């Protein structure tokens, strides 16, 4: 389904590239099969016909900001434009908060969004879109579309966290060992995540080796344990990790749960304010401490 925002998006992209305001533009383009969508990287305004915008544009393109060739540009004084939904912009805001990008190195083309779909033939909205609060982005340089383009996201609300919390302790452990035993440590989840930008990841360090590298249950639990800790208060719930996983593991569940707990206990929600201090960088005298004896 083509959206009526596609033309205004292409016009804006052409303007940005031809005027030299940006060196590179990351957007969505048509993939080779069916309705699939893939990321495209544009350098000239002649290429903007490749840009598309529809309800298959699920990718969080903020991930590419921290990878080449964008990384060299944003760190080296260039400027990169990103086509981004409200959820993706939360990731960009977090990158700004963490001093990974300067605000004026990235040009955010915010899209009014009415939800995305994952599978080729799926009629359902992606579960991550249910209950979305950022259908109309708040942080952008250009906004394509308006309130009128943010249709209601149908479908049951997401309640996977509640389902785990309803289990008793041993059932939770059983659930996680069953899910995580499938992990083959391809690290697709890490690569897809906009917040996992470390050049060197602790999971691959061997001197000393804190995280067992084997794709055994022990190594997998260690990997997902540290992954969750490193994403607490940073995960923006874009769901890209779970979408990337070839083993159908709900990878985002742990990081989303921790980010939610952080939100409940500290009133801090990742990526809502690019000026805010990152969660783990600061502390307050009156932080929760009831668990300490």
């Amino acid at each position: 389904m083509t959206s009526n925002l596609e033309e205004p998006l292409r016009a804006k992209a052409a303007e940005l590239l031809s005027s030299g305001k940006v060196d590179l533009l990351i957007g969505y383009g048509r993939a080779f099969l069916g309705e699939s969508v893939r990321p495209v990287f544009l350098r000239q305004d002649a290429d903007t016909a490749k840009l598309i915008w529809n309800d298959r544009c699920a990718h969080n393109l903020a991930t590419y900001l921290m990878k080449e060739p964008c990384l060299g540009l944003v760190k080296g004084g260039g400027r990169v434009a990103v086509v981004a939904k409200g959820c993706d912009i939360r990731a960009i805001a977090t990158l700004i908060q963490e001093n990974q990008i300067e605000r004026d190195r990235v040009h955010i083309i915010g899209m009014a969004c009415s939800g995305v779909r994952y599978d080729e033939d799926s009629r359902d909205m992606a579960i991550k879109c249910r209950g979305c609060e950022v259908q109309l982005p708040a942080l952008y340089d250009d906004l394509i579309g308006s309130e009128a383009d943010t249709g209601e996201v149908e479908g049951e609300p997401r309640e996977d966290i509640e389902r785990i919390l309803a289990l008793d302790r041993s059932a939770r452990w059983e659930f996680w060992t069953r899910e995580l035993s499938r992990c083959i440590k391809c690290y697709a989840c890490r690569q897809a995540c906009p917040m996992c930008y470390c050049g060197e990841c602790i999971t691959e360090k061997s001197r000393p080796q804190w995280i067992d590298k084997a794709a055994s249950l022990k190594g997998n639990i260690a990997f997902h344990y540290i992954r969750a800790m490193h994403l607490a208060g940073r995960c923006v719930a874009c769901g890209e990790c779970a979408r990337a996983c070839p083993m159908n593991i709900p990878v985002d569940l742990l990081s989303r749960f921790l980010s939610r707990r952080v939100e409940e206990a500290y009133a801090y929600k990742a990526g809502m304010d690019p000026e805010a201090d990152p969660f783990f960088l600061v502390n307050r005298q009156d932080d929760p401490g009831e668990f300490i004896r």
Partner: protein
Amino acid sequence: MVKSRPRIVAFLCNWCSYAGADLAGTTRIKHRAEVRVVRVPCSGRIDPTFILKAYERGADAVIIGGCHPGDCHYVSGNLHARRRFYVLRELLGFLGIEQERFQVTWCSAAEGEKWARTVDEVCDTIERLGPLESFKSMTDYLRIPEKEISLSDE
């Protein structure tokens, strides 16, 4: 059958709880002996991986000891630790590991008594819960036989 004794690993801040534990010793306060202490420069130095490693290597519980808020030798290391361990405790619970197996205490250099009481209480708790089986059942393949440092006395 002989009841297995709990195995507890404690990470204690050099400036407060380590000295507190030392005080418990020098003043001859009796407490349970099943705790192994690792001295760290600050509770803010304790990475979540330390705790994971302890569990993987057979600890039934981990105790973190830091300075009372306001007393940190490095001003705010313990306050950073407080945030980190709040989150870690939530993660353990969500994974299905009893939160009682992860204890944090603010214990100053003068609180030998408090340290002794903490150790006793955690030991009692672990005896009630039993050993932490979650990690013990995991075999790591690719495992090269190595001489492991045994935490048990046997």
